[in-house]
């Protein structure tokens, strides 16, 4: 299997604090890689470095073999790398449907074509399908800010999929979501993965969620990878229990 994402010797320091310390890993085509670790272990910083929100202090990131270190998030996104954020990130005053169209429109044609072309950039049907896929069809016309937290979390995830990305990085998709919605979200993510053979990287605290969804798990502690393996092996790994699960 080829690597969609390769991270080699990535390092990020904030002043004297090294948040990500010489991290290397690969994400293979079609897998769902979980990244777990205690708070402050550098998971989100790792994501932000991979996705261009932060500039790494050292190391390299490659997407499909192409070096993307330091690339702007919008350019990375157009290469087919998408993400969700740890804290909810929707466009509250736009309708659910407009949120979805906005999530895909910059991938449609040129800047000028988007100005003179159709108001929905030709994405209306695709947006409706994706909204229906995440069971939000009855809310399509509502402003995103009027949705419940769990529904916004679904919308947030749906937006990341709108442009048909090759690789999706999900930062704590289950954070703050109630159990019913959690099961629903996991089931939808799994369904999307099965349907499109997409590649996911998931940061998550909710262990059940990770164990049920992911095919491989990395454990991060104090900015370093301390373990890697199948979910059931990670559960038994002494170092992981020491660093994380034991608490």
């Amino acid at each position, binding site marked *: 299997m080829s690597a969609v994402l390769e991270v080699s010797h990535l390092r990020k320091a904030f002043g004297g604090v090294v948040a990500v310390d010489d991290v290397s890993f690969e994400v293979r085509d079609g897998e769902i890689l979980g990244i777990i670790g205690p708070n402050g272990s550098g998971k989100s910083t790792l994501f932000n470095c991979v996705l261009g*929100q932060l500039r790494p202090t050292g190391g390299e990131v490659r997407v499909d073999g192409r070096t993307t270190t330091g690339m702007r998030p919008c350019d990375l*996104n157009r290469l087919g790398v998408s993400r969700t954020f740890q804290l909810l990130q929707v466009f509250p005053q736009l309708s659910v449907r407009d949120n979805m169209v*906005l999530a895909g429109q*910059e*991938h449609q044609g040129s800047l000028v074509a988007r100005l003179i072309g159709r108001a929905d950039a030709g994405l209306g049907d695709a947006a409706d399908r994706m909204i229906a896929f995440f069971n939000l069809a009855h809310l399509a016309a509502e402003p995103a800010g009027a949705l419940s937290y769990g529904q916004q979390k679904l919308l947030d995830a749906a937006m990341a999929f709108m442009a048909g990305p090759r690789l999706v990085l999900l930062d704590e998709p289950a954070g703050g979501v109630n159990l019913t919605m959690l099961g629903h979200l996991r089931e939808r993510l799994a369904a999307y993965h099965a349907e499109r053979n997409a590649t996911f990287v998931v940061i998550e605290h909710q262990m059940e969620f990770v164990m049920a969804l992911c095919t491989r798990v990395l454990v991060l502690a104090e900015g370093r990878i301390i373990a890697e393996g199948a979910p059931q092996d990670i559960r038994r790994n002494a170092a992981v229990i020491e660093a994380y699960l034991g608490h």
Partner: protein
Amino acid sequence: MTPLGRLAAAFAAIVAVALPFLLKPFGIYLISMWAVLTVAAIGLNLTLGYAGQVSMAQGAFVGIGAYTVALLTQAGCPFALAFAAAGVLCFAIGWMLGYPALRVAHHYLAFVTLAFTTLVFLVLRNEEWLTGGTYGINGISRPVFFGLSTAKPLPFYFFCLGTLAVLSLATWWMLRSPWGRAFKGLRENPIRAQSLGTDTRRYTLMAFAIGAGLGGLSGALYAPLVQFIEPGSFALGLSFNLLLMVIVGGSGYFFGPFVGALIAVLLPEWMRVAEGYYLIVYAMLVMVMMAFCPSGLLGLVARIKAASRSNRAAPAPALRAEGAGS
């Protein structure tokens, strides 16, 4: 747009066309001023209301546009060319003014644009060889199109109204296109927008440039309307006034600038009876409005509509909640 909104817009259009026939020249001058300032306010509404970038520089762009048209037409350049030059020049300067917005936001950006307005005022006042300094520029002529002169108030008003119609139609088209959605994304959540492929840098610069370009076109109408321009007209006061128009009308609402400009132009005239107190009354009205309805007059209309809708819809969920509880 709702059917009621469409009806209101159609009614307003009829009034805009019929009204000048009932007015004396000064009245026509006032509604011409409304049309001219609405163009500038539409530009600022784009930058501020849709794209969320604070700008205190819109008055400066009106000034640059006005001086461009005055100087070029007096040098013998045809009006249409001077008009286009005013828009293009302000677009370019607005693009450059957008660069600070890539680094700073909110009140810091307000200060940057405030400084720019002061800078433009100083250039207009001090560079006498070009601008005539504090004496300004006199006797700016109104354009002639295909042998038809707009020198009289009525034809000039229709020229302003026609320009407003064309520019607002173009803006409406842009705002309903994916560009408008990208601008709103920039306002609501720039980090998320960027992670979804929106080139936030380019859209920020465009929001500034297009807004400034409209400011310049407004100035290009302002100069032949008043026929005498001087630096003081384009100092901070005008920028604040335009900001007030956008906010009082309803920032981020398409028709907000139309309403805001109408109030800003007419209110001082209606309150002449209050003589010296009119600014005090005006200021108090603005304060009351900002306290109770920060989303402007059209925001107030939207709120009333939402309230009446949820009142009508209320009984059903209440019944459901009771059912679930028992």
